[in-house]
């Protein structure tokens, strides 16, 4: 295996409609946040270049383009993903409950060689809302879910206030790279 100067990583972002998938991506790449909610229109994928240790990494982050709204994401969307980011809204129980479904759906559709080690990461978004008073999913509960799924890294984020967004995507890149490295060997 020759040393590659540049690594392209495909990251897909999954979770219920309205949890802030597109907002997280926009905040991370464009440093922008829009209060107004529109079911995703116009979002495709964004790319961001990162330097991690001695490697130049291009993250290609794929939005669902709204096709998750009626469970209509096709298998092509999942192809070649290096990492899957699951997002839920800490203020909406249902968006946490459906994580199991998204996790399963990803493994079923993407069909990675070793499902037990495939890199996932979980983001609990919208922690800013109402100063945290309206949250219904505790951090403890989320961390338990992550532990049960094979120690998935967990971050609590606010796309609106740009809290933990950079840190979580950096972790995503590292997780995806570590997995790629293992596959190379």
């Amino acid at each position, binding site marked *: 295996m020759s040393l590659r100067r540049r690594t392209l990583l495909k990251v897909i972002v999954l979770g219920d409609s309205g949890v802030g998938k597109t907002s997280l991506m926009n905040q991370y790449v464009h440093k922008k946040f829009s209060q107004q909610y529109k079911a995703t229109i116009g979002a495709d994928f964004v790319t961001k270049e990162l330097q991690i240790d001695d490697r130049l990494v291009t993250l290609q982050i794929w939005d669902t383009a709204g*096709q998750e*709204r009626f469970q209509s994401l096709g298998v092509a969307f999942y192809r070649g993903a290096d990492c899957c980011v699951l997002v839920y809204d800490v203020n909406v129980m249902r968006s946490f409950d459906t994580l199991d479904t998204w996790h399963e759906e990803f493994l079923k559709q993407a069909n990675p060689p070793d499902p037990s080690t495939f890199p996932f990461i979980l983001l609990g978004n919208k922690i800013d809302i109402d100063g945290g008073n309206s949250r219904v999913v505790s951090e403890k509960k989320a961390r338990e879910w992550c532990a049960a799924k094979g120690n998935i890294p967990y971050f609590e984020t606010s796309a609106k206030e740009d809290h933990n967004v950079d840190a979580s995507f950096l972790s995503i890149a590292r997780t995806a790279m570590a997995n790629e490295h293992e596959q190379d060997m």
Partner: protein
Amino acid sequence: MDEEYDVIVLGTGLKECILSGLLSVDGLKVLHMDRNDYYGGESSSLTLNQLWKRFRGDENPPESLGSSKEYNVDMIPKFMMANGILVRALIHTNVTKYLNFKAVDGSFVYNKGKIYKVPATDVEALKSTLMGLFEKRRARKFFIYVQDYDENDPKSHEGLDLNQIPAKELIGKYGLEDDTIDFISHALALYTDDNYLEQPAMDFVKRIKLYAESLARFESGSPYIYPMYGLGELPQAFARLSAVYGGTYMLNKPECKVEFDDGGKAVGVTSDGETAKCKKVVCDPSYIPDKVKKVGKVARAICIMSHPIPDTNDSHSAQVILPQKQLDRKSDMYLFCCSYSHNVAPNGKFISFVTTEAETDDPESELKPGVSLLGPIDEVFYETYDRYVPTNDGEGDSCFISTSYDATTHFETTMKDVLAMYTKITGKELDLTVDLSAASAGGSAEE
């Protein structure tokens, strides 16, 4: 669902998805539904388990065939001409970014019981064993004329007005033999019958040029490219385009009944007891069965093999055209092969299709001339499906129905239907003048 849309598209076959994408890009509000829980309708690609379920019911596929998920068996197998209309549409819409393509290894033609590489240039004509010594020279001269022909340069016309003289007169000028005419018209110009002979020669010459230019494009053994993971990727890529531009997607919607007003105009679609309103409906023939008629049927054999098609130079992907006259038939027969090199089967496995416009009710004996060229076969499935064309014009009832996919193994006829439908729906022509160099495809080795 209780909103009003400009267009509701029913069925997620390739034609419907391309149209949905184009219409969304135009700014129209599109709702796209399918009764199935997967994309592609008739033009999907199936896993091994799905294939078995369709043809063998409850039986399980043998383990020797490998993992079900590694199979992507096209239900409508076709290759894309590298400079053809579909590639232009992909570049025009920038859908290329969702897909990876790889060149197809070989393009062949069947002649007097044997398989030959299709010669498409003057140099290849001289090397080909398909023609005798003198015929090679005549073919070479003909190819040079076609290569040099430039619509805007009268000197290259050699005194012939191709918009006036029929193709047979041009062919006559070069004194080509029947077998040569056969392979040029069916394997190069991709005509499905011989009506072109009486038509102005311009179209004939343009088709040959398209083939030769596509062949030169990726320097592989054929003018064709094909997506990694099979054609089922194409409808999904155009569906994503539509979604990115605001199209709403709903799979797994039962019934999808088109509603009409008193004047017979489509005004909406009902599914699950809810009706979405719309101005126009675009769909495949299965969604409005009383506005289509059967015009023929396609017979096909789907074969799983452990080797390439014999005599195709070990091509891991190939097309072989069997012109109708060679088989004493009224329609051409097509062999299409792709394999693990395009990620449509596990390592070492090949998928071959034999298709033709059916002339009998017995696909097995009808397809025998094609199937017998394949060598040993691990598994084979025979099937016929009916072809439909719409009987309405779309103007009066606001329903725009696509025609069924034909037996050809390339997209030229498919795309003509899409472009004609687009014009009917929007009242304008789609400008596909694009920079073809914007697309790339991996050669024999993947990047």
